[in-house]
């Protein structure tokens, strides 16, 4: 019983964390492509900003994956 609840908790942490970040990075990527198509000369600057934002957004599900793995395997 307890083991299955922990498994569910790990699945929820990873899954729900991934949903939000996936939507966020998806919007970010579409806007980046849009901007790059409108003004190709800005691509280097946009790419830097894109990666900064992606790193910020990406951190949350990554931390979720770490905590999820911890409670799944080590706890």
């Amino acid at each position, binding site marked *: 019983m307890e083991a299955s609840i922990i498994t569910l908790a790990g699945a929820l942490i990873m899954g729900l964390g991934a949903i939000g970040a996936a939507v966020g990075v998806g919007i970010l990527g579409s806007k980046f492509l849009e901007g790059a198509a409108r003004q190709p000369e800005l691509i280097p600057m946009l790419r830097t900003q894109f*990666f*900064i934002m*992606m790193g910020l957004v990406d951190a949350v599900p*990554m*931390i979720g994956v770490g905590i999820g*793995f911890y409670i799944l*395997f*080590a706890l």
Partner: protein
Amino acid sequence: MAGDTLSKSEYISHHLTNLTFGKLPAGYERVSEGHSHVLEQAQWTLAHSAQEAADMGFMAVHLDTMGWSIALGMLFCFSFAWVARSATAGVPTGFQNFVEMIIAFIDDNVKSIFNHNNPWVAPLGLTIFVWIFLQNTMDLVPVDWIPELAKLFGVHYMRVVPTTDVNATAGMAIGVFILILYYSIKQKGVGGFAAELAFQPLPKWALPFNLFLELVGLIAKPISLALRLFGNMYAGEMVFIIISLLPFYLQWTLSVPWAIFHILIITLQAFIFSILTVVYLAMAYDHH
């Protein structure tokens, strides 16, 4: 590869325990290899288990984190200083080329973000970037190599990635936080800084609310810096440790793709830490 005698969760916990040096109180019961003895007086010693490390409390030092981060910092300083001393004006070759590329990259980014006169910000950004990058790169060393090597020399716990220890990332973030406070007060004076905290988003009648909002925003900066880097590297290390539970002939199928993806993450997180530092310092310089 999983040890023969350790269970899976013991193996993982073992990899997540730091080599801790601290003070055990008098009367503490140490259990080692089945038999226990009680300490007659307080003793500074190495922890033999995760429980002992936890019982050492706040004044304990993680020797592995300290050692690896200082060693990597010295590697960065000495190699870059060596390149700077032997730099030639002609076409750069090899390592000099690489170093110039990193410095130019950081310099461009700092110039586009930080528009004030302070010669220390770009070197700070460079130091943070390269240092964190080197610390994160230790993640790509297979998880068992260095701990097993350390075991041969009688050291039982060894975590080689300093940034997977929240103490290291929080230490760096607190350093940045002190710089933010220092430059805020230097640029605006104590009164100006306090006014910025108290009178900002809303007019003066909402002072407590403003103060609360701005203080939370201020404290959130170092905390988010520290936890973002720590969380990413901890998660990455965790995945590598889980992968190393597989039989050794299967490990490459997962660890190679994850390592390749991880090259992106370690660079990105080092870059984000240094860029956010520069952004925060630029905000400390700006007058509102």
